[in-house]
């Protein structure tokens, strides 16, 4: 049996299973196999794994493919049910025939120019700024999509630990020394200061049944946010939590949204916010809560889970971020009171409780994110909102 031939075949099979395999790596793998005992299945698997996989999440997929390939002792028949491995291909299939594909180019010319898309220039679009998202027609949703995709989100800034030249700050020794050598004296002292960077965002979006009216606009909102220069991590939840960040990292909004919808199989269904947050805290927080992020939770607070868990997990999220903001589309209604058990439990922990039901409220959110005041005290619902400023 020709080893090189088999490795190439195996590489093709891995690619079909959705792994990102480079040709160069296959050559490395062949070279590596010269050094190990090819009679040992374990060693061959470990060798190929070391060189072809560089992501923990890919290991399971690799191992299954390896088993399948080498158990058969012959190349797999075409049409082997790779997808029965429980994985979806990373490459997204072409859109179904009949669905018009809008290129970015067309998109730019269809909507208003990017200059007019700045905050406060909504009038250019045929969308009411005060109409509730939940009552948007299909046409309005499309216009809102175009607007939100290019919404100029700007985040409050944090100081990084990197230095840059500055007009004031600590003396910068390296140029100082050079000048001293060259001129023998120092007239003005070169200085340096810490560089600043925008704060990262972590967004947790509720896509359960009660939020269905808002789920499309939420997707547009999230996509627009991900297009800004800021680092954005996005999770969607209903009964369980799914990370969708990877799916948003594309320039094609339509494709990204399509992926989003597919990834979250439980689009709709009951909500368990507390459990979703627990999953976030246990499995993701350590990886995505970095550099003092702003955490945005978008939910109406209708919760079928245990409010005690919700309160506990939300408190934990709050302690690990710079600012915790809860966006509630229902807060737009004049007579809304956050009386659901879930919302009651949550309000003790959030820094801001803001509406997110129309374009005006999103503009206000944008202003708020830009200013991003330092955290003072835990949110006190009654004390601060006795006069209910939005009504």
């Amino acid at each position: 049996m020709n080893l090189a031939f088999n490795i190439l075949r195996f590489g093709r099979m891995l690619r079909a299973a959705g792994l990102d395999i480079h040709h160069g790596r296959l050559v490395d793998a062949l070279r590596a196999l010269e050094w190990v005992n090819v009679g040992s299945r374990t060693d061959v698997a470990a060798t190929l794994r070391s060189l072809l996989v560089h992501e923990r999440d890919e290991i399971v997929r690799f191992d299954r493919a390896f088993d399948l390939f080498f158990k058969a002792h012959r190349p797999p028949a075409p049409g082997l049910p790779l997808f029965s491995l429980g994985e979806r291909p990373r490459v997204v299939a072409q859109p179904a025939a009949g669905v018009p594909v809008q290129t970015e180019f067309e998109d730019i010319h269809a909507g208003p120019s990017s200059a007019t898309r700045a905050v406060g220039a909504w009038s250019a679009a045929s969308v009411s700024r005060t109409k509730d998202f939940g009552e948007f027609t299909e046409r309005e949703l499309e216009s809102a999509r175009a607007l939100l995709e290019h919404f100029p989100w700007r985040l409050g800034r944090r100081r990084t630990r990197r230095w840059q030249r500055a007009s004031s700050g600590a003396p910068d020794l390296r140029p100082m020394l050079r000048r001293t050598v060259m001129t023998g004296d120092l007239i003005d002292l070169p200085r340096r200061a810490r560089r600043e960077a925008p704060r990262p965002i972590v967004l947790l979006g509720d896509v359960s049944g009660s939020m269905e009216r808002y789920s499309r606009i939420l997707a547009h909102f999230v996509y627009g946010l991900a297009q800004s220069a800021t680092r954005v991590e996005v999770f969607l939840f209903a009964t369980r939590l799914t990370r969708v960040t990877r799916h948003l990292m594309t320039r094609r909004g339509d494709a990204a949204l399509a992926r989003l919808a597919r990834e979250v199989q439980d689009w709709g269904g009951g909500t368990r916010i507390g459990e979703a947050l627990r999953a976030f805290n246990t499995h993701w927080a350590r990886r995505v809560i970095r550099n003092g992020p702003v955490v945005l939770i978008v939910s109406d607070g209708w919760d079928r889970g245990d409010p005690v868990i919700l309160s506990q997990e939300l408190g934990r999220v709050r302690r690990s971020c710079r600012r915790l903001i809860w966006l509630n589309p229902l807060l737009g209604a004049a007579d809304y009171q956050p009386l659901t058990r879930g919302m009651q439990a949550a309000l003790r922990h959030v820094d801001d409780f803001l509406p997110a039901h129309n374009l005006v409220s999103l503009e206000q959110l944008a202003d708020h994110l830009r200013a991003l005041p330092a955290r003072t005290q835990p949110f006190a619902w009654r004390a601060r909102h006795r006069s209910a400023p939005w009504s």
Partner: protein
Amino acid sequence: MSESVTLEIPPSVDDLQQAMASQHYIAGRGLAVSTYLALRLQRPLFLEGEPGVGKTEVAKVLASTLETELIRLQCYEGLDISHAVYEWNYPRQILEIRLLESAHALDPRAAERELFTDTFLIKRPLLRAIEQTRERPPVLLIDEIDRADEEFEGYLLELLSDFQITIPELGTIRAVQPPVVVITSNRTREVHDALKRRCVYCWIDYPSVETERRIIAARQPGVSERLAEQVAAFVHELRAAELYKTAGVSETLDWAAALVALDRDELDAATIEETLGILLKNQEDMQAVRGERIQAMLNRALARGAGG
């Protein structure tokens, strides 16, 4: 500078695994194969895994197995050239200028030549790993790369491809023999694919109960066989529980040592309660398992030992 000698790489995976075991490091087969390939193919070894599974230890053990020096670079946010590669010793340089001035001997051109020499250079880990002042190439440990920022990753990518460093005032320094590079990551963020693709990748998982028992026996010889077995089984149960931050192998070892210090040679719920802070470092986690859950886990752990 001395004659450079090539490293003596163990002739096979088994030999490497045994050599590591004789340094009290019990490596799983996957890790042994990856490490061996990294040495043979002269690629960096990229180790990823939860905190406390023994990633850093691999580099240490590798250095002593290969009988060479270990150079360690701990990463953090904002790590830059002056802390990773080199820095000029400014206070000394300024002092030197003042001395020259007071002797009325300051000629700017000559001063520049004199001030930017080896004497005033502070060598940081990456430069030390590259320059050839020792017999054998060292092991370079780049620890917790996920803590550094993307800018540093970019620099590292360049360094790892040609193993040379350019200092504008001195010129280019090139490694005669590239160091053995071990990169670790706790995966608090995704490290860029381009960097990983240059490496031999290995994900280190928590060990099986049996492997962990062997690790305890190798690392903490004072622990009785029975206690080691129980400790390994209990920690295994603990890891199955949903916790924010579970116990790594290093916590297991600390715990085993603590139990010996307390003169215990078997586990009971009260002892576990008292020493829980060594295994779990999070208040909420400790509260979550205290009481009945500890007893239940202990029962399961003991049953495992009795059953086989």
